[in-house]
Structures are given as C-alpha cells and as structure tokens.
C-alpha cells in the first residue's frame, strides 16, 4: 500500500497529496492525517473519486485507507 504522511501541512496539501497518490497507485492508498479538517477534506475528495474508506487510529493520528 502506498502510504502518505500528510500530518501537519497546511490546506490543501493533504488533499493534493491524496490526489497525487491515487494517480500513482489507484488501487489502494493510505493517508496519515493529524487533524479533523484534513481528515474530512481528504475523505470528501476520495469518496467523490469513488473510493471506499476505512479509518485506523494511530495514536493521535488517523490513517485513512482508501480502496477502489
């Protein structure tokens, strides 16, 4: 799984990183975020792209796993 660390960066970089990641490996990616804004924005983007999402807590952070 392509795993992207999008913690701590300003808007809209988490979404942009998700966009670049799904262009590279469209089947399955994981995006690590550390705030609800990024989580919601990335989730909205990936859902609109037709991905099914799953969330895994990693300490204070959340790993968003997106699969086709």
């Amino acid at each position: 799984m392509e795993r992207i660390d999008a913690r701590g960066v300003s808007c809209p970089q988490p979404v942009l990183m998700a966009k670049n990641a799904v262009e590279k490996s469209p089947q399955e990616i994981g995006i690590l975020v550390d705030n609800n804004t990024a989580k919601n924005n990335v989730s909205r983007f990936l859902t609109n792209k037709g991905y099914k999402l799953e969330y895994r807590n990693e300490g204070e952070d959340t790993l968003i796993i997106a699969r086709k």
Partner: protein
Amino acid sequence: MKEKRGIILTGAIIGIIAVLLVKFGNPKNMGFCIACFIRDIAGGIGLHSAPIVQYIRPEVIGLVLGSFLISVTGKEFKTKGGSSPFTRFILGMAVMIGALVFLGCPLRMILRIAGGDLNAIVGLAGFVVGIFIGIQFLNKGFSLRRNYSLSSFEGYLFPIANLGLFILLVAGFSMLKFSTEGPGSMHAPIWISLIAGLIVGALAQRTRMCTVGGIRDMIMFKDSYLIFGFLSILVVALIGNIALGYFNLGFAEQPVAHTDGLWNFLGMVVVGWGSVLLGGCPLRQLILAGEGNTDSAITVMGSLVGAAIAHNFGLASSTAGASPNGKVAVFVCLAVVLAISIANCEAFSSKRSLGKANS
C-alpha cells in the same frame, strides 16, 4: 448537498450579521473586514497614528475567542506550530498591504460586492488570478513544511492576549487610541460586536469557512464545499443590503473604497496568492490561531505589523485612490511572494522531504 448545509447556513448567518453590524454602527460594507479591523487595532494600540483608523475591534477578538471556545469544547483545540513561522509572518504582512491597497480583506470584498460596489468585482478578478498563480506553485510542490505539536500553553497565549485586549477596551484603558472621525469612529456597540464575532468565530471553526479555499478547491479539485459558504455570504448580504436600503450599484461614491481599477486588481492578486501559500484567508488565520495554530497567530502578528507599516509609510489607499508608495509596495509584495513561492517549491529544490512514501 446535505454535507453543505452547515457551510451554507454559516455563510447566511455571516451575511446577516455583517449587514446588522452596519445597521448598529460599523462603516458601510464593513460588517466584517479582517484586514480593516486588524488595521484599526494596530492604530488603537498606537502602532500607527493614522487618526481615522484607530479602534479596538471586538469582532476580531470575538472571532478568536469563539473559535477557541468551540474548538476546546469539540476537542479540536491542538497547539501546533513550527511550519516556517517567519515566512508566514512576512506573508501576513504582504497580504495585509495588498488588502489595504484594495481596502478590504476577501470577506469585505464579498460584502462590498453585496453592497453593489463594482470596484470589488475588479478586486475579485485579481483575487482569482492571485489564487490561480498560487495554485501553480502548489502543483509544483510548494510547501511551508509541516507543523509539530507544542505545549498547550503556547496555543492558549493568543486567545489570552485577545482576552487581555478586550479587558483593556472595556476597562477604558487610557493609552488606547480611538478615532473621533472616519471609519475608525464608526462601530457597533462593544458587546454586540463581540457577540457577533463569537458566533461567527464558532461557526467558522466548525465549518472551516475560508474565502480563499472556496475558489482554490473549485479550481484544484472541483470541490464546491467551501465556495458554497462564499456564495451564501454574498447572496444573503445582498438581500440584507437591499432590504435595509444600503445597496448602491456602481463604481463611484462607494463607502471606504476607491475606483483605481488596476490597483484594486493588483492589491487582491497579492491577497489571493499570499493566502493560498498560507493555506487560508485572513479570516481563516484568525480561526486557526484560536484553535491553537501558533503559525497562524504569527501570521496575524505579521498582518498587524503590515497594517502599521502600511499607514506609517503611506502605503494604504484612501478613497481618492492608491498612493504612490502603495503602488511601489504592491510590486515589492508581489516580488516577495514570488520569491517565497519559488524558494519553497519542491520542483525548484534538490531537497525532497514532503510526504514521501514510507511503506
């Protein structure tokens, strides 16, 4: 559409409150203006001495405290910082100077359009161009790098400072400066302004309302969530202005505005571009500062200093138009923002560090 209900409602409430603040005493088309209000605060604490723009605007304090209170309640308050703080300070200055050449932040730009001020449409065109330029750098890997968790108290300091300023205001601290004429002398009663700020601050924190984000996300991702907030403010303030008789369509004789099209345009190019690099508009910076983002607090401090410089050096426009110094300053700001854009782009740098896969 369901997920957009909150942002549409928030935009509507901001639109209503903005028009009501004018009714209660704020200058026309200035129910809210983050740039003008921070500029007034800079004058109020004596950082500049332009006599017509000095007041401690409780709306700004309310926005910060509203965001703080709701983010603590909603467990979203997190102290973060360390993402290129001084670069953000400088960008905050540049955005402020651009806004004061136009005479308004993006939120006031919307309110000016809603009041029939066609100069603000020219400003909007510049704003969109600025955002578009900023996006080109984002697509080339622009980043101010990540922030990190810091001690909670670091994040409390900005809301505490705002509370302190409010206490000085209500206590009638004699060293504060207040305009007796001009826009700084026009204001709603203190408590109404504070409550207006608290409500909007809380709603903006929950919905992530951002005037630059709306246009940016539409262009980059065809994501319309935030732009619905933008449009909702516009429509509701427009209706409110018509209902209360404030609507006046045209270029000339607009309140706290000038008709210098080129400089309205270029001032807002700086604002749009700089705000994209910062990750959010001036309103959003206040909200983020309220929820513990000390990089945004530093950005606001940069805006405060930028406002002081803008008036001390004669950069801010007046109703007569842009000043000679202001025109030079816009080009300096564009050069500075360009330099920051290039220097922080992955595409122009050998160092690659951001978000690399580690699977």
